[in-house]
Structures are given as structure tokens and as C-alpha cells.
């Protein structure tokens, strides 16, 4: 088991390195330079553009060949220096440090929301198979899966913030993270991000439960005199949870890289999605790479955690 984990960690580092390299090259071979906007500001004050550009590029080593820049960047990264954000005029690590919490709270809350409701509805759907409740849940989940999250976000803002005035139209960073007001203003973003996932979980849970509901061990559990609650909630669910874990963990990865970005932009939440969105437009490569790298490690960690969770959930799975 330990050798398996070590092996997986080594793979993770190699994968992260690969992604880092590709991201670096893609960003640096582009036609624009990270200092373009900076230079434009200076040029607007009447200084000579070319000499300023040369001076700044020399200062940050941007005039060196790309290979050299790459090695320099890697060397710095290994020493824990994540670089400088030209657009935010602060170290990348400081920038991320002050924004990650906004993404984290959104992803955490919407994942909890989606799992609790999605799995719950899925279980009920399976137990009440082919009833009105089941059909209603099916229709709801098909709609939920089909609607893009950013559109849903806009519609939620339109209805609940503009027409009904129940919520504000924008995210207010004035409230502290640990406050009821903050929780309240996260309601719409969490729904916008979570409903798509929730809808998927309803379907997956339902089919995973149905796969196991007719198994013989369920009859055994009933024959033992166990209450239906235990039969469903323990014997069936415990067997149905394995495919669910795969999907939930996989989704978590796609939320980190996809859904949360868009939701943050729609609602104006200053999380890492917003940060990297701005950084991409400013060609602020150090920030883009840093956010990509964090996302990569997160997904690799989630994958490893999933595989280890399997061995706990299903004793038949062993990796050695």
C-alpha cells in the first residue's frame, strides 16, 4: 500500500511538471508580452516605448531565449518563488493567498449542497421507482443537467435579485467570510454551480441504487429482520456508493477548473477563477501558471484520494 502511494505521488509530480511545461510554452510563445499593458501606461506618459520595453524585459529576464526563461522559472519555482504578477503588481503567492478562500467557500458549499440533495433525491427516486416522485425527479435532473451553469446564474440573478430583490446582484466582499450575510449572498452562486452537479448525482445515485436494490444480499438483509431504513441506508447504499464516489470526485475536478470560474465571473466573486480570468487577458503568465498548477495538484490529489477511498469502501479492491 505504501509503495503504491509513493508511486502515485511520483507520477503526480511528473504529470504536474508536464502540465506546467505545456502551460508555460503556450503562454510564452503567444504574440503578446506580459509587460505590454505596463509599457502602454508608461508610454502614455510620453516616454520612449522601445527603451522602456528593453529595460523592463531585461529586468525580468524576458529578453532571454525561451529555454533559458523556462529553466529560470523552474528554478525559482523549486525554491518556492512563484513569480511576480505584472497586472496586480504583487507577488503571485500573495495574490493567490488573498483570493483562494472565495473560490474554496463556493466550491465547498456547492459540493455539499449537490451531494446532500442529489444523493438524497437519488435514493428516494430509486426506492420509489416509477412513481410520480421518481418521474418528477427525473424531469428535474434532465433539465438541471442540460442548463449551462453560467446561464442559470444569470437567470437566478435576474429573477431573485432584479425582479424579486431577495438577494443582491453582486458579491459584496465587505462581509467577512464567517458571517451569515456572506452565507446568504452565496445562496445564488452555490445554486448556480451546484444544480448541474446535483441533477447528475440524482441520476447516478438512482441507477447505482437500482443496480443493488435487487441483489440477493438485500433479501438476506430483510430476512434478518432489519428495518427498511437499515436495508436501504446501509446495505444498498454502501454498495451503491462506489460508482458515486468516482463521479463525485471526477466532478469536483471539473468544478475546480470549469464551473467555479464561470460562476465567479457571473457573480463577481473575486476567487481564483476571477484572478486567472484577468491574468489570462493580461498575459500575466506567472499567475496563470500558478493557478493552473494549484488546480493540477488539487485534481491529482483528488484522484489519489478517490483511489484510496475505494479500498476503504470496497474491501475487494487492493492495490498491492
Amino acid at each position, binding site marked *: 500500500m505504501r509503495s503504491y502511494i509513493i508511486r502515485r505521488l511520483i507520477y503526480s509530480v511528473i504529470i504536474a511538471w508536464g502540465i506546467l511545461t505545456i502551460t508555460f510554452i503556450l503562454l510564452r510563445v503567444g504574440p503578446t508580452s506580459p509587460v505590454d499593458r505596463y509599457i502602454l501606461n508608461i508610454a502614455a506618459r510620453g516616454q520612449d516605448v522601445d527603451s522602456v520595453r528593453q529595460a523592463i524585459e531585461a529586468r525580468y529576464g524576458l529578453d532571454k531565449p525561451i529555454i533559458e526563461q523556462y529553466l529560470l522559472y523552474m528554478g525559482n519555482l523549486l525554491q518556492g518563488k512563484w513569480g511576480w504578477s505584472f497586472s496586480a503588481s504583487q507577488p503571485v503567492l500573495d495574490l493567490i493567498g488573498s483570493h483562494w478562500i472565495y473560490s474554496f467557500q463556493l466550491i465547498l458549499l456547492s459540493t455539499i449542497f449537490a451531494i446532500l440533495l442529489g444523493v438524497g433525491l437519488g435514493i428516494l427516486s430509486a426506492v420509489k421507482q416509477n412513481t410520480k416522485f421518481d418521474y418528477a425527479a427525473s424531469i428535474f435532473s434532465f433539465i438541471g443537467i442540460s442548463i449551462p451553469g453560467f446561464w442559470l446564474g444569470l437567470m437566478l440573478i435576474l429573477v431573485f435579485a432584479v425582479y424579486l430583490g431577495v438577494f443582491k446582484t453582486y458579491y459584496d466582499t465587505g462581509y467577512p467570510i464567517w458571517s451569515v450575510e456572506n452565507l446568504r449572498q452565496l445562496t445564488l452562486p452555490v445554486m448556480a454551480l451546484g444544480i448541474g452537479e446535483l441533477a447528475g448525482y440524482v441520476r447516478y445515485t438512482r441507477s447505482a441504487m437500482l443496480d443493488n436494490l435487487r441483489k440477493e*444480499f438485500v*433479501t*438476506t438483509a430483510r*430476512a*434478518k*429482520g*432489519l428495518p427498511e431504513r437499515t436495508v436501504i441506508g446501509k446495505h444498498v447504499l454502501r454498495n451503491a456508493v462506489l460508482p458515486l464516489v468516482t463521479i463525485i470526485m471526477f466532478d469536483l475536478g471539473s468544478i475546480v477548473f470549469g464551473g467555479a470560474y464561470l460562476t465567479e465571473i457571473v457573480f463577481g466573486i473575486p476567487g481564483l477563477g476571477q484572478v486567472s480570468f484577468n491574468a489570462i487577458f493580461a498575459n500575466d503568465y506567472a499567475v496563470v501558471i500558478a493557478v493552473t498548477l494549484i488546480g493540477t495538484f488539487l485534481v491529482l490529489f483528488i484522484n489519489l484520494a478517490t483511489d484510496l477511498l475505494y479500498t476503504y*469502501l470496497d*474491501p475487494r479492491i487492493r492495490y498491492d
Partner: protein
Amino acid sequence: MTADTVLEVKNLKTWFYTRRGIVKAVNGVDFTLRRGECLCLVGESGCGKTVTALSILRLFDSPPGRIVEGEVIYKGLDLASCTIQRLRQIRGKDIAMVFQNAQSALNPVFTIGDQIVEQINAHGQVSRADAVAKACRLLEEMKISQPERALKMYPHQMSGGMKQRAMIAMSLSCDPCILIADEPTTAVDVTIRAQIMHILQELKANRDMSIIFITHDLSLVREIGDRAAVFYGGKVVEVDTVEHILESPAHPYTIGLMRCLPDISTDSKRLPSIPGNTPNPIDMPAGCSFHPRCQEVMEVCHSKDPALMNIAGVHAVACHLFSAAGGKN
């Protein structure tokens, strides 16, 4: 109902409402189980033995299954109509079941110990240590070596025979009055089968327990049975002591069935069989369901379904040959 009757099944009908029609899997079953006896339910595949066993504790899938008629009387309580809460107290406690295939009947993600302890806890306040100790004793009784180790094992870590014995141990964990064993030896090889049969025989001798033993293997009936009920087309067609069923059967179907037993004392090359097929449970023949295959079919058999009638004491048979309408007796 006599004093030593522990379970009485009366005119039980369990039907399955499927898209293709109503499957009358159990269609008027009668039998009684006496204290301390082993009653064998025998018959071909699809004759309704297993559904009858599942119906006693209402364990069939519902929907589509439903008990449309009949009673299952246990200690004055009708299990076919009592509340599910009441039935749950009976399940596993008074009446326990052993299933055909322990591999799929045990939950793969829990240890054997957990699964046995769970059943003990479902029927009474027992401390974890006491429950584990009891589980351990039961595994020992089932002749499982190193029972403490076996408690911590998952089903996939055990051999087929071990799983089936663990399953029996689990069914005995609340000291039931009735054990229903549904073809417990079908999924195991012959040596394991001998072990399991040996264990069941010991249980019968050592515990005050009645056994309903379901099988299509007549040699096992001889080994363990006291009485046997022969099933055909979702009904009991003959009930008698095992000796009589095997040596002097009365119903034409039972006679045919016994003729199919290979006999090593003769040197016939071809094993006899009953002509025709088992009836389709969606579309049962009118009258006696056996009449299309019966050698002694009469006019009345096409239209009238014979009732199970007592002939002499323990012996009952459902055939017009023995009724007033047929007029042999």
C-alpha cells in the same frame, strides 16, 4: 391445527403482476410444519418452491409480487397479513432463512462478524462483546476453524463452503424455531455438500428447531427429510412421509418423478423422464395443471382442479384418481 404444528400454510397464492401477464408462481399451497421435523419441499425448477419459502416471510419483490390469497399461520399470527413491523420481529428471530448462493447472499462490503452481529443486535439489546462472542460460538458450531479470524473476514476471502456455513451460522444467531433452507447445497461442490448436510443433520438433532428444506435433489430428501411436500405448477400435489414418497408415491407426477431417479441395480441405458414441459405459470392449463403430461388423465382432469385431500393420516394427495369425482377410492 394440532398442538405440535409450528407453521401452517393455507391456500397460499403469490402472484406476480408482470407486463406479460400474471405469473401465478404460488397458486394455492397448503402444508403444515411440525415441531422438530424436517419438511422437504421438492419439485422441478419453477414449480413454486422458492417463492413459497419467500412468501412465508414476504421476502419476494413487491411489486410485482403480491400475496393475493391465503394464510401463513405462525403462533396464531397470520404472517401473510400482519403489519410489516410485526413481521420484522419474526424475520431472523423466529424464522430464519438460508439462501441458495452464499456468495451473493452475503453483503460483499461487510465482514462476516459484522453481518452476524448486526442480526443479533436487530433482535435485542446485546452488548457488542456478547454479540461477538455468540457469533464466534456459532462459527465454531459450524466447524469453521479459527472462528475469531473468520469473524474479521470479508465474504470474498472465504471459500464457498465456508461462506455457506457462515450463512447458516448467521441464520442461527437468534436461535430460530424455524429454519428455511432454500437449496443450500446447490452452489457448492459434492464434498462441501456433504459437510453442509452433516451440519444440518446435527442442527436437527441438537436444536429444538423445525426445518423447511427446499431441494430438487431427491437423494438429499432421503438423507434429511421426515416428510416431503411435492410441488407442481405452484401447488402441493402430494404430502407424505419421505419413506412413502420415495417408495410408494400416489400422485402420477410423484410416480413419474421417482421413476426418473437413476437406479444402479438395473442396467437400463436410458433414464426415464416425464414427457412434456413444466407448465407456463402465466398460462396454466385448465383443470389439473399436470393433466397434459399425465399418463392416467381422465375426463374430469381437463376441467376440474383437484383439491389436496387426506387419504390416510399423514398422507395427502391432489389428484382425481383419489377423489370422489375420479372414483378410484
